[in-house]
Each structure stands twice: as structure tokens, then as C-alpha cells.
């Protein structure tokens, strides 16, 4: 006997993500899911964001890594609440892991929650966490062919940050072709060129972030 199912495989994760979203909304927290390949600069971006928004908004951080707490230690020096999730081999965060991290954060004291996903351009694209916006950090040394290789991630991102833009004179990277490829499959995307090393473009990113928070 054949039974029609027609159900999304990740529907359980979607439901859990919906619950996380409700929890965040009830506490007035705006959450951003930061995704990238390893080494694109997610942690540097978080540190730079914390430093520049000090006194402007209250930030909390969830650090997702397969193992180690190096990133959480770096962030905790900035005196913001941070929770480390070690996925123990899983290549992405899922809504359930995010929920356990949320339970360990003082949400009533947080207005902006930065969630650093595991460095990976494939798996995190599939698993919603309950975030309000998905931000993809891409970087110049990775090459400008990445949208073609990881289309789902670029398709789902609300924002793409082209990080390490200060390296542009030294590497072959066509920012125009890169941006055009992304816009081809993602109409809503915002693209910013930034450098966490020189500070170039970071203000635009922060303005976007604060604007999104105000709009809610």
C-alpha cells in the first residue's frame, strides 16, 4: 500500500525554528544568522560590530563550532553575553541547538543577537534557527565563483558581505560579476563591501543592521 506523505523532511526543524522566533519576538530580540565558509571573517565581523555598537544597542552572541571555544573566548572579552555551542561533528547549527543556547542567554537584556553558524557554505543554508535575517559573509580570497558553486546559500541570504575588500588589489576578484551573479538568483539581497581590518564599509553594514532593528 502506498501512502502519500508530501511532507518536507526538515519540517520538524522549521517548527522548532518558528518557536525560537516567537521566543525572540516576545523578548524584543532581533536575531541574525551569520554564515560563511571557514575563515571568511565571521568572528572578526562580530567583534567589530560589538565594538562599534557599544552604547547603541545591547548585543548577545551565540558561537557555533564543531569543537573548541576559541571564538566564544574572544567574544567574551568584549563583556557581552555569549554562549558556545559545540555541535560535536555536525556541520551546521539547527533550531534545537539554537533553542538550548537561547535558554542560556539573558534575552531580556539583549536587543541584537548575533549567531555565528558553523563555517560551511552548504549545510547551514537548509536549517533555519528562528533568525530574522540571514547574513552571508563572503571574502575576496575565496574567489568570485562561489555563488555558482553554492547557489542555495546565496539564494537564501538577505545580506551578502564581501569581506576583506582591502585585499582586492592583490587578488583576482571581479566584484561586479560576483554581485551580478548573486542578484540573478536573489532579488531581495543587499550587498556590502567591507573590511574588518581597515573598517571600510563597516558603517554601511551597521546602518543596515540598526535600520532593520528599528523597523520591527
Amino acid at each position: 500500500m502506498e501512502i502519500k506523505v508530501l511532507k518536507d523532511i526538515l519540517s520538524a526543524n522549521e517548527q522548532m525554528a518558528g518557536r525560537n522566533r516567537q521566543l525572540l519576538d516576545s523578548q524584543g530580540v532581533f536575531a541574525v544568522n551569520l554564515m560563511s565558509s571557514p575563515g571568511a571573517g565571521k568572528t572578526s565581523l562580530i567583534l567589530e560590530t560589538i565594538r562599534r555598537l557599544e552604547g547603541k544597542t545591547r548585543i548577545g552572541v551565540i558561537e557555533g563550532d564543531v569543537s573548541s571555544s576559541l571564538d566564544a573566548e574572544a567574544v567574551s572579552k568584549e563583556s557581552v553575553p555569549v554562549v558556545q555551542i559545540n555541535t560535536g561533528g555536525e556541520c551546521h547549527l539547527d533550531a534545537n541547538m539554537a533553542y538550548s543556547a537561547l535558554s542560556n542567554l539573558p534575552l531580556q537584556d539583549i536587543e541584537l543577537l548575533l549567531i555565528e553558524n558553523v563555517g560551511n557554505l552548504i549545510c547551514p543554508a537548509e536549517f533555519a534557527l528562528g533568525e530574522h535575517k540571514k547574513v552571508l559573509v563572503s571574502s575576496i580570497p575565496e574567489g568570485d565563483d562561489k555563488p555558482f558553486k553554492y547557489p542555495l546559500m546565496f539564494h537564501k541570504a538577505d545580506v551578502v558581505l564581501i569581506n576583506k575588500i582591502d585585499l582586492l588589489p592583490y587578488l583576482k576578484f571581479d566584484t561586479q560579476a560576483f554581485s551580478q551573479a548573486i542578484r540573478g538568483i536573489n532579488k531581495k539581497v543587499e550587498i556590502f563591501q567591507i573590511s574588518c581590518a581597515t573598517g571600510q564599509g563597516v558603517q554601511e553594514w551597521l546602518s543596515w543592521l540598526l535600520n532593520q532593528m528599528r523597523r520591527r
Partner: protein
Amino acid sequence: MHELAITQSMFDLVMEQARKAGAKRVGKVNLVIGEMTGVVGDCVQFYFNFISRGTLAEGATLSFMMVPPKAQCQRCDKLFELKEFDWACPFCGSNSLQIVAGKELFVDSIEVE
């Protein structure tokens, strides 16, 4: 790489439906997978064999209907398969595209006894 988590969710869904139907055994699971998801069928089958041991889904075969990525041109409305490294409409050259297929990840049906 994310196949274990996906297989586990899929297995849970299959078991829930099989139990609801009062099935004694699951013989086959028909899956629809968009190629953009990067999910590897052999890998899912491998994990499934492991996870389903000792359950009524043990020994079930998985059938994968892979869906190639398709786009619709936003200028001339034509539908076409999205080729790797070439994201332009083959008819009018526009690179304003709407992805209409290739992101699927669902259980279409199960065959039970």
C-alpha cells in the same frame, strides 16, 4: 555533509506516517530531492540503513527523484534548466532569474505492508 541530520528527520517522518497507518513494515520510501540541496543519495541510504536497524523500516529501499535546478527568466518568462557557471537566460540573455525548481527536499510517499 548534512545527510545524517536530514536522514534522521526523514526517518522520523517515515516512522510517524507508518505508525499512523498501522503498517507492519516499510518497503520503500520515495523521496524528492532538488539538486541545489547538495544531498547525496548514497549517503542518505547509508545512514538510513544504520538508523533503521531493528525498526519496521529496516531494509526499506529509498528511491530518489532528483530534480535539476530550473529557472524562469524574469524578462521573457521562458523556463530552462540552470547550468553550472552560466546563469543567463539561453533565450534572451537576461540574468534576472527566478529559481522555480531544484530546492526540493521532501518525502513524496511511502510503500508499506
